[in-house]
């Protein structure tokens, strides 16, 4: 199994498309960092516009590395599923297209093992991609913008909130958030891998995965009570942004944030369960389908 995984990782590492993802992330992060370095105040003014008259805020301090990483992740984690699909969606269909799938399958390894190796390789890719993101969006931002208390601008139900997390309470939240993101993106990888079994070129499953994510995200963001109650809980995309839950800090009766706390850990935990369930079901289905599939490519 370890041997197979090594082979899969080796193949991923040798493909030029793998590095598109890293380049894309770097480019997006650089653009954000440049933009905020140049004119972060405008963004702050936009976020604060309705209370600009009532409060003063040290905007230079507010636009720090922690804040930057949150802003970048907020945008980037919407795009990253595409990058994950790019690799996972290609895992089987790409080999079918090249004609190497039949060679792989006629080697003395079980199809289940082969599929698992491909799944774990996609997972490893996802994690490495996230580590790269952490390095670029968090570590580099910390170096460029410094470190200070972190502000979270948030819409909660019908209300907007500004939360402040003290600087010494941030890093564990990012660790947890990146961990959560790894699980969420693994769901995307599982979908792409599942679709990949059916296709004989890699474009199909990649596009299909992206479409599924987009459609579900759009539905997740329709703010109609009927959908909120009946549809949203069933869409995995509703849980993709759950990493933010680690930045929703609990407050005491006075509205003062409690250091080291989470506002709603059960919600995050349930989201994780749901995401894990998705991965489990998709992997199970993939294994079943892949083992029964006639390889005609």
């Amino acid at each position, binding site marked *: 199994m370890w041997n197979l995984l090594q082979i899969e990782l080796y193949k991923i590492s040798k493909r030029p498309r793998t590095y598109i993802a890293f380049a894309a992330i770097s480019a997006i992060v650089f653009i954000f960092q440049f933009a905020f370095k140049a004119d972060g105040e405008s963004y702050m003014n936009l976020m604060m516009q309705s209370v600009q008259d009532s*409060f003063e805020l040290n905007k230079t301090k507010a636009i720090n590395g922690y804040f930057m990483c949150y802003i970048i992740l907020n945008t980037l984690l919407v795009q990253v599923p595409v990058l994950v699909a790019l690799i996972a969606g290609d895992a089987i269909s790409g080999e079918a297209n090249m004609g190497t799938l039949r060679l792989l399958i006629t080697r003395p390894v079980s199809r289940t093992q082969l599929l698992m190796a491909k799944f774990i390789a996609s997972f490893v890719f996802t994690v490495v991609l996230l580590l790269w993101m952490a390095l670029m969006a968090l570590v580099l931002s910390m170096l460029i913008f410094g470190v200070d208390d972190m502000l979270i601008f948030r819409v909660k139900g019908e209300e907007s909130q500004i939360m402040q997390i003290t600087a010494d309470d941030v890093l564990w939240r990012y660790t947890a958030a990146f961990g959560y993101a790894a699980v969420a993106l693994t769901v995307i990888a599982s979908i792409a891998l599942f679709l990949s079994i059916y296709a004989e070129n890699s474009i199909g499953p990649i596009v299909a995965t992206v479409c599924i994510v987009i459609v579900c995200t759009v539905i997740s963001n329709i703010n109609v009570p009927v959908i909120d109650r009946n549809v949203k809980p069933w869409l995995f995309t509703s849980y993709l942004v759950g990493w933010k839950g680690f930045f929703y800090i609990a407050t005491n009766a006075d509205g003062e*944030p409690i250091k080291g706390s989470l506002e709603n850990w059960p919600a995050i935990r349930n989201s994780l369960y749901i995401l894990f369930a998705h991965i489990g079901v998709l992997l199970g289905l993939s294994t079943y389908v892949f083992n029964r599939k006639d390889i005609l490519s």
Partner: protein
Amino acid sequence: MTPSFKYRKIVSIIVAGAMLLPILLQAQTAEQLIEQARQKLDQVNQYEAKGRMKTNVTFLKVPVATVTIYFSKPNQMRIKSEKGVSFVPKGAVSINLGQVLSAKDFTILDAGDDKVGATPVKVVKLLPNDDNSDLVLSTLYIDPAKSLVLRARTTTRENGTYELDMSYGKYSEYGLPDKIFFSFNTKDYKLPKGVTFDFDDGSTARQPAEKGKPKKGRAEIYISSYKINQPLPPGIFSSTGTR
């Protein structure tokens, strides 16, 4: 004119009005106590105060900030957070009652006696004579025994009513409070649409009040020490507070 400067001016006017009371008021007791208050405050040319500020606004979930307040005669004031990011209510800058200006154009009414807590106070209302003034009405509650302003309620056209509650301790001889409760109005906070994709964890916030309705905010400042009439760091007032 920046808003903060506006508020500073408003309060300057209020305080100035308070200082003018002895001249305009018929009641001899009021005149005396205000004159005493003015004298107390007059001793302070500048100060640097250290304290903690707790901001209590529904949409703002922020920790207690350690702040330093700098004041210099006649009306320069700055609240600076020691470390971290902090939201400073702009109106809070107006806590400097110590300003004494030669202002004019107020109608002063004796509004009788009242109590702040258990302390009997004299209530004085100030009405600007200028109809276009942002200030609509200011009410001062003065402790006649100690010549200290315990409460000031100020109504402005644009930003509603501010209320200052002050308690005095060690520094009462200078007329400087060590506990200030500052109530102010703020608009409901609304994030621009489509900026965030938030994690909807199923919980809903309490039903909000009608949109745009002003909300009450409160800042509590607990001052632990004043350094009175000692040189301030140079350039401390040079920026508007955003740096």
